[in-house]
């Protein structure tokens, strides 16, 4: 395992180059340019506002700016995760030529997919931070929690990315299964809603490893400390996923060229 990690380190420049390639290709000749990065979060926020508004009417509690800020903040990491998984899925089969004709550690592909989504994440986050500052909402020292939360999310994205990219290579329908899953996953994850809205039964939702992370973001905006027990759970889940994903990936990697 260390030999493989060392080899990956040797190819770190290539990882960056492929991520840059993916970013450039996405933005060159694109009508919307960098707006692309905020499109998905924007859609999620709009959907979230509609859901929250309905909830506000049903519960007779007014819709407040903090709630909107919370949805906006959660939409960005969610969009990042969803896009990372989608692009990772495609990352090996879309690079057929390189898989069959050149040697380099192939985990570079799903990792580059995640890295290129990080670029989008940073653009969307900058816009968000700007808006939060202008609206004078959600800013406190809790903001430092963003770093570990994001780190866990990135690790989770990489772990899942490794698994789905290898899966899609061997089984062409994995791509479709993942897409369907991601479409409906938003209902199982506290993006539009908060776990607290479910009362005591809400705890079950936290078993979804993404939930504690998003709940963490929620807490940050409300000026509270995230629940570190559940964050730890996410950390362990993400670490195990990445370890397992990497080992499995490296085990099946030699058969990529003939099965793609």
């Amino acid at each position, binding site marked *: 395992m260390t030999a493989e990690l060392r080899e990956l380190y040797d190819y770190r420049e290539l990882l960056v180059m492929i991520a840059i390639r993916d970013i450039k290709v996405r933005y060159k000749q694109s009508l919307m340019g960098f707006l692309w990065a905020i499109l998905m979060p924007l859609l999620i926020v709009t959907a979230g506002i509609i859901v929250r508004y309905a909830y506000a009417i049903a519960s007779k509690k007014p819709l407040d700016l903090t709630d909107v800020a919370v949805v906006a903040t959660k939409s960005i990491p969610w969009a990042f995760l969803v896009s990372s998984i989608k692009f990772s899925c495609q990352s090996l089969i879309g690079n057929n030529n390189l898989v069959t*004709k*050149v*040697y380099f550690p192939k985990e570079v592909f799903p990792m580059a997919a995640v890295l290129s989504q990080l670029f989008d994440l940073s653009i969307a986050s900058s816009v968000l931070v700007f808006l939060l500052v202008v609206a004078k909402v959600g800013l406190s020292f809790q903001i430092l929690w963003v770093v570990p939360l994001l780190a866990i999310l990135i690790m989770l994205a990489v772990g899942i990315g490794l698994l789905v990219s290898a899966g899609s290579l061997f089984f*062409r329908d994995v791509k479709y299964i993942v897409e369907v899953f991601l479409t409906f996953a938003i209902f199982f994850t506290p993006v539009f809603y908060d776990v607290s809205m479910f009362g005591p039964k809400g705890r079950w939702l936290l078993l979804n490893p993404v939930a504690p992370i998003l709940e963490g973001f929620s807490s940050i905006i409300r000026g509270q400390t995230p629940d570190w027990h559940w964050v730890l759970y996410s950390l362990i889940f993400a670490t195990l996923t990445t370890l397992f994903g990497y080992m499995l990936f490296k085990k099946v990697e*030699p058969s990529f060229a003939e*099965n793609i």
Partner: protein
Amino acid sequence: MSEIAVRMEHVSKRFRKGELHDSLRDLIPAFAARMFGQTSNHLDTRRDFWALEDASFEVAQGEALGIVGANGAGKSTMLKLISRIMKPTSGSVKVNGRLSALIEVSAGFHPDLTGRENIYLNGSILGMSRREIDAKFEEIVEFSGLAEFLDTPVKRYSSGMYARLGFSVAAHVNPDVLIVDEVLSVGDYAFQGKCVNRMKEVIRSGATVLFVSHNLRTISEFCHRCLLLERGRIVLTGPPGKVIAAYLNRSRSAHTQDASSKPVTISKVTIRNESGECSRFQAGQKAWIDVELTARTRCTKLAVCLFITDDAYQEIFNTSTERLGHGSFTLDEGEVFTCTFELNLNMPNGIFHPSVLIFRYDNETEYDRWEPATTIHVSSEEDVRGFVHCFPKVTRQEIHAAKNLNLAGIAGDTASDRKRTPD
């Protein structure tokens, strides 16, 4: 003893023929069926295709090894196993040093990126660090001849430009072990010359090269040693001339009908000088080639073609009995025909392969061919190169002082118009 750069030990590679389960929708029922005892022919060995069987060889550092064989013999599979794109089914492959495989030089190109961006991308893919690419950037661009198109997306390039850019990047990689799979034939004539020279430089600089090609001339020019693959097995290793001759002979006999079904066959070819049969000649010497043919059935309008190829299998001379004014001949069943060609061997130093072909001259049907029929060695006192010996002599050498030239370029007279002979 030089170090071993590449070692293959008892390597075998199996592929499965037919359609594999490539979706979960197919796999899960098949898996369930197997679990419940209804076995499919998943493990059927008839579906196995062994691309390589028990291949073992070593390449020393600095050696250039050529790999030849018919299509489907296993050459590309062997290269992919060495460059770790695939893993062997059994056996091991060891490579010492940085390896770069040129299997498809434009593989990493992305059509939406510019030439400049693709140079960095492809260079990175082939293993160069960014610093290296920066250092060699000018050279790469110069080699490709595409300086003015660098900032255009490569999807706008012609296929020749595409290939040239790809090869230019690949040619500057400088690995310890270089694998080349049929990529030297890109670009126009001038560019191909550049590629060939560049490869020679790479070999001269001490890199180990594994070279797969159907261009036997290039193989015999570059390689120190050759390896012949036939249906997944290494059947011969040795000097290029020997291995290539074996390859040609085997592919010829694989394609032609066997002797008993040929209407007329070449039965004997000998080459001699005044004293008798020999294989070493002096340039310009006379030689006689005797050809004997045997007819199995009646054949008409026959002629014998004699041609000579050099050691790189380039044809340098070709003639035939009917072109030399002797018309054609007819053979009845069982008849034997003999003829002798008298030649002046005006060739430079080297190894040559006289070859004989029997054909029907009006419809150009070939009945039998011995290529090479024999191998001769020609030596020449004068140091001349090329295909032909013109027996040159320098009859005059002089040195003059420079003459004055007026604008129209007509030489004028000078007072110091003198001659001297060279040292």
